[in-house]
């Protein structure tokens, strides 16, 4: 399998190449110590600390798992903990997301839900048995009892994700945190809201599920200006984070808010639970991304635009020959330029064409594109970047009682809030792209003042 590692010194000097060069000069993908991980018995060269999914992708391995029913091949799609494609067993622990688990020397990574391996799973026949769908409402009643029983017991054995861990899990004591305001999500909006809250004199706890702050800015392939300087997204985000820390905000990275109640919010930070009791909760947790609906859209080698940009940040290009398509998005142009800057051949669709189907048996080897099925033609490529409009992550605010309403402009649901970030729950606020109408850029200072008013006076309205 061909290496997909980028030679960071060979990046072209054109304008987008310059951004990548700045990125690599600031945070080199080569910075981590070289190490070796095991994947299904094979040694893979990796860099200490990088996500395992990228170590594997860098070594040309893109099929990591199999789907639950059809045993279709799957691989990382989002690279940010939003899908199921990268689930693997790591050091005897099932269901680890390879895009979030860091590489360490000697780590043992195994595929699950497959026999004998994710690359070659004989249970794939299930997929061919059911050419359209798996109708569990009628399947069992159509056959006689014996065959039904056999199928049931087979299904029971094969269903589920992974097998039990080797060791019982050890959960350290939870940490309890009391604060005035909890900010969930440290993308650009969360960073500025949290900073403004600290400026209002509130005690602030800010949690971010990724191991870094900055969200889309961090993954962008464009310049950002901070304090009159032109910086790459990673450096700009780290500057913002440093300001937050200097302002006394308690920042928790790799910390996922999983559930929120009136009394508190459950956050999982690496291997420990936090119970955060905050007077006010502010949700700035942005959007989900997906690749959209086309034939075999779940094939390994199909990525969101964000994932492909993130891979570049870690010094990995998703393919040698990449189809880049999707809803109109300036980020797609920057991504295409950046992929070219690292020597990949980039294909784009022409006006009126769309992606109809990804082709390939265990990972992408081509794409069927055209205006319709009759005019379809095939492009040879080893990766497809397909982006669709981002949709608000309204779930957490929804658990807190904030109504998720139709956002007809974006054809999605979003958390309902006014322009000051206030919701129908007086202690819950939302801002940024998760909010209705995608109120971004919000006036973070105004949101912070609403929160302060609530915390100090107890009531906004």
């Amino acid at each position, binding site marked *: 399998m061909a290496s997909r590692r980028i030679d960071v010194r060979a990046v072209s000097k054109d304008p987008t190449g310059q951004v990548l060069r700045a990125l690599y000069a600031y945070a080199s993908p080569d910075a981590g110590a070289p190490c070796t991980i095991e994947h299904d018995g094979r040694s893979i060269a990796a860099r200490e600390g990088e996500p395992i999914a990228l170590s594997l992708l860098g070594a040309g391995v893109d099929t990591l798992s199999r789907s639950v*029913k059809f045993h279709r091949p799957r691989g990382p799609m989002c690279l940010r903990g939003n899908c*199921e494609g990268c689930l693997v067993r790591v050091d005897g622990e099932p*269901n680890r997301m390879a895009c979030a688990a860091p590489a360490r020397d000697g780590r043992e990574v195994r595929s699950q839900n497959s026999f004998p391996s994710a690359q070659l799973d004989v249970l794939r026949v299930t997929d061919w048995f059911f050419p359209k769908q798996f109708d569990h409402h009628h399947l069992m009643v159509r056959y006689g009892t014996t065959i039904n029983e056999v199928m049931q017991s087979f299904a029971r054995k094969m269903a589920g994700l992974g097998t039990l861990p080797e060791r019982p899990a050890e959960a350290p004591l*939870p940490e309890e945190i009391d604060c005035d305001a909890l900010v969930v999500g440290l993308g650009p909006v969360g960073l500025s809201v949290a900073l403004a809250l600290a400026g209002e004199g509130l005690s602030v706890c800010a949690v971010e599920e990724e191991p870094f702050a900055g969200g889309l800015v961090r993954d962008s392939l464009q310049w950002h200006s901070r304090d009159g300087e032109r910086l790459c997204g990673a450096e700009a985000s780290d500057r913002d984070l440093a300001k937050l820390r200097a302002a006394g905000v308690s920042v928790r990275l790799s910390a996922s808010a*999983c559930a929120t109640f009136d*009394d508190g919010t459950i956050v999982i930070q690496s291997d420990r639970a936090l119970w955060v009791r905050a007077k006010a909760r502010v949700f700035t947790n942005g959007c989900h991304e997906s690749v959209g609906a086309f034939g*075999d859209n779940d094939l390994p080698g199909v990525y969101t635009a964000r994932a492909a940009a993130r891979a570049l940040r870690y010094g990995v290009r998703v393919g040698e020959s990449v189809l880049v398509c999707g809803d109109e998005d300036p980020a797609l142009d920057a991504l295409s330029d950046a992929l070219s800057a690292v020597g990949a051949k980039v294909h784009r669709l022409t006006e009126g064409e769309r992606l109809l189907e990804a082709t390939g048996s265990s990972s992408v080897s081509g794409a069927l594109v055209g205006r319709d099925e009759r005019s379809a033609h095939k492009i040879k490529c080893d990766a497809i970047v397909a982006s669709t409009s981002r949709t608000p992550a309204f779930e*957490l605010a929804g658990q807190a009682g904030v109504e998720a309403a139709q956002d007809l402009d974006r054809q999605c649901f979003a958390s309902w809030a006014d322009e000051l970030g206030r919701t129908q729950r007086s202690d819950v606020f939302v801002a940024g792209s998760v909010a209705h109408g995608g109120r971004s850029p919000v006036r973070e200072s105004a949101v912070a003042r609403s929160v302060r008013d609530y915390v100090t006076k107890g009531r906004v309205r």
Partner: protein
Amino acid sequence: MSAKVLLCRCEDVTLAEVEHAIESGQHDIESLKRFTGFGTGWCQGKQCLIACARVLAARVGELPLAPVTPRPPVHPMPLGMLASLGDAVSVDRVASERASEDEGER
């Protein structure tokens, strides 16, 4: 074309399956979820909810007024860690809150 279009990757729910469910009368998003099982897997609907809602909108004319009820946990968490919270979280109170919230559901 023989390719499957996956709307919900986690539970292997295809476009054909969702269309079939809509034809068989599942015209609201909650019923569609229960019938097909979309959104009940690892990612809890981060990818598929909107995809299914848009297919439904294309068939019945418009996007549902509200999405499915979001329930915790929104992100997978080990049971051991939930158990570790034992004393910190007043389970009784949390349970009673959920109950009163559920009563408010339509």
